[in-house]
């Protein structure tokens, strides 16, 4: 949520809020790392507010707010010897399956992403400890906008798969930030990012996506254990690249709309196209819209355009 890439979940999926509970303790204080998870869980269960809402996950305690969202509380200790390039401690988090510590660095990651996302026009507010205020869409930099679209496309295209079998958001976010070319245009940035991801996934070798602020953390580790998950990711990237190519070849709003529906879903596209048409109608009423020779709707400042008269639908008035 801090990095501004949260999207409204599709269908019955819930969105999640991740909370890192960083204890000022040395990992060696916990010979069994799972004790740390037990401690935090016990503390939460002692509070009746959370009774019946708590679920133990592999690395976190989940509080389920039915039909709203879930909050994942990740207990962590600062790593005594591992610092990131911001000079801050990386974290160690307990992993139930491994019965060991795993490396992480969520704060450093957020700083890295914010640095990548900053473009010429938008500066981020900084808020570390409190849940950040929601950013208005117009204040959101291009990179988080692109990540939102990629996540939505993943959920539409891979709708038939369980959420856990789809490429995870942190992998998409990291790849998008890594390949982002700084363009303020969403379509330019999206095409550039997808082109580059695809370039690196066409070979037979699997790519690895590491936390750029803590190379000990492999965001793509589940691909190592399940080749099908990696195949799903590669297939999704191919599909998105083809869809963007098809979008480029469309002509006229109906064709664009049809392609956007395939990519992002019917309802959301219908709303957007309706809004778009309404705005164009309003502009046409004021005489500020025209067509170019290619039939594309543009503002009248474009040279050699022919203004479209406002149609009153009143016959030959």
């Amino acid at each position, binding site marked *: 949520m801090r990095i501004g890439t949260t*999207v409204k979940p599709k269908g019955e999926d819930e969105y999640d809020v991740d909370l890192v509970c960083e204890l000022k303790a040395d990992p060696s204080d916990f010979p069994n790392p799972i004790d740390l998870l037990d401690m935090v869980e016990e503390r939460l269960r002692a509070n009746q507010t959370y009774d019946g809402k708590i679920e133990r996950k592999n690395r976190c305690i989940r509080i389920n*707010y039915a039909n709203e969202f879930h909050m994942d509380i990740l207990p962590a200790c600062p790593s005594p010897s591992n610092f990131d390039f911001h000079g801050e401690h990386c974290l160690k988090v307990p992993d139930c399956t491994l019965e060991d510590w795993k490396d992480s660095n969520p704060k450093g990651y957020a700083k890295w992403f914010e640095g990548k996302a900053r473009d010429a026009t938008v500066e981020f507010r900084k808020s570390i400890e409190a*849940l950040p*205020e929601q950013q208005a869409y117009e204040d959101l930099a291009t990179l988080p906008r692109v990540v939102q679209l990629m996540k939505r496309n993943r959920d539409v295209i891979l709708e038939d798969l369980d959420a856990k079998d789809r490429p995870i958001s942190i992998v998409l976010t990291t790849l998008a930030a890594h390949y982002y070319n700084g363009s303020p245009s969403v379509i330019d940035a999206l095409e550039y990012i997808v082109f580059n991801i695809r370039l690196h996934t066409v070979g037979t070798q699997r790519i690895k996506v590491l936390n750029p602020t803590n190379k000990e953390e492999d965001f793509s580790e589940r691909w190592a254990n399940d080749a099908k998950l990696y195949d799903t990711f590669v297939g999704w990237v191919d599909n998105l690249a083809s869809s963007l190519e098809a979008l480029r070849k469309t002509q006229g709003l109906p064709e664009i709309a049809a392609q*956007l529906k395939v990519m992002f879903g019917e309802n959301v596209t219908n709303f957007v196209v309706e809004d778009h048409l309404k705005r164009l109608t309003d502009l046409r009423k004021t005489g500020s819209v025209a067509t170019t020779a290619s039939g*594309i709707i543009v503002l009248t400042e474009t040279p050699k355009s022919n203004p479209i008269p406002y149609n009153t639908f009143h016959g030959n008035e």
Partner: protein
Amino acid sequence: MTMKPVLSRSPFLSELDDLLNGIGVKLQISPTEHDEAKRRYDTITNG
């Protein structure tokens, strides 16, 4: 004297940008949902 290049943008791409940004707006968590998440978060972090 150096001049900043003037970047011309294809109207087609501008229109696509408009539409994609429109989709982005629709994907945002609503302010009500966000406020509720913030309230829960504050309860946990202050409790």
